[in-house]
């Protein structure tokens, strides 16, 4: 009996987690009922067919969930305003940019740069982050500090892309410096934007996140450069810097994706 109960309990836990596939509004309206229906179905299936029946139920349920979640997501996109759609897409792209950087860190520092390091990930990352910064700009109406921060962050991303493109074309130390400066400028921009968001509560939630992410990354960057100038080993700093940067942009991408539903974000708060 205990085993039966745990099968149902774990099935319900997993089912609840999978509901995240659906748009938030759909989950709020029908999530609880879906759980009730699935719970009753699990109980009946377990009673009639045992654990093999539950496995069979899961096969059909997973297919059902994935296909209908896709339909609901598409229906949601269909009803979105242009701004909401742009910010949602830019949020996804931003998170992808963060993941690209994490892949690079894994490749370079965990796999120890086996084979050719996928250096093209850096300009791709820059492009993704530039799109994310543009997404933040479209989403809100910011005061001067917020606009300055986003402008600097965008400029930094463009510099990163330019530095790496030139590095591919013309081998020179200069482009490395330009790349590093671009990263620093984008981090500084994020800190300034983050301060504005924190001070004026511009975001619907996680107002301290841009400041935290930008500040942490910039601090590690400065520490890494200081270590480099003093001639000490800086691999740890570099790995930590890039990893924090990647994680930060993944979180900021999630923030962008969540932000579009809050009308307040567009209006009074930024005044």
């Amino acid at each position: 009996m205990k085993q039966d109960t745990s099968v149902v309990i774990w099935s319900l836990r997993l089912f609840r987690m999978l509901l995240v596939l659906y748009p938030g509004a759909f989950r709020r309206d029908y999530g609880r009922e879906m759980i009730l229906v699935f719970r009753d179905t699990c109980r009946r299936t377990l009673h009639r067919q045992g654990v093999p029946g539950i496995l069979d139920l899961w096969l059909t349920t997973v297919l059902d969930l994935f296909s209908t979640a896709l339909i609901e997501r598409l229906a949601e996109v269909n009803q979105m305003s242009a701004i909401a759609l742009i910010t949602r897409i830019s949020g996804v792209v931003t998170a992808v940019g963060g993941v690209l950087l994490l892949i690079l860190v894994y490749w370079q520092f965990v796999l120890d740069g086996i084979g050719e390091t996928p250096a093209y990930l850096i300009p791709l990352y820059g492009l993704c982050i530039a799109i994310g910064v543009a997404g933040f700009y479209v989403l809100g109406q910011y005061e001067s500090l917020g606009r300055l921060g986003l402008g600097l962050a965008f400029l930094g991303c463009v510099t990163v892309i330019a530095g790496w493109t030139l590095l591919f074309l013309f081998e020179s130390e200069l482009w490395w410096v330009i790349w590093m400066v671009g990263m620093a400028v984008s981090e500084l921009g994020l800190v300034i934007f983050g301060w504005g968001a924190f001070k004026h509560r511009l975001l619907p939630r996680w107002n301290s996140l841009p400041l935290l992410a930008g500040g942490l990354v910039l601090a590690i960057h400065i520490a890494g450069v200081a270590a480099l100038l003093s001639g000490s080993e800086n691999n740890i700093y570099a790995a930590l810097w890039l990893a924090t940067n990647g994680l930060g942009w993944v979180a900021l991408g999630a923030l962008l994706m969540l932000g579009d539903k809050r009308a307040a974000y567009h209006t009074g708060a930024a005044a």
Partner: protein
Amino acid sequence: MNSPNAGSAEPESFLPLTPAMFHILMALAKGESHGYAIMQDIETSTDGAFRIGPGTLYGSIKRLLASGWIAEVDERPDPNLDDERRRYYRLTGLGRQVAEAEAQRLVGMVRLARGAQLLGGSLIVGQGRAS
């Protein structure tokens, strides 16, 4: 399927319905019901040949509610008899008209199939099968 909210449009203009939608309307034609009971009714009435999962069920219910073909029942069941968290649904007048129109359309399809001798000249309806 045309826009379900098209004011005074004829029920036929909404056809064809998806199988899930039609089955849900048929289940509610028998009386008010909640999600799990609708699922069970569909499974039983089709002899297990047609089953829907929670996602299909509530995705369809969402569209049926938006179309005004079904409505949520305000009264909650007696907590001693049923889980009070369940929501009950009922068929509306428009929903009944649309379901009837869909049933007529399917009857027409069966006639066509019989005319094309796809049903072997005889039609036996029962246990969710036609032979």
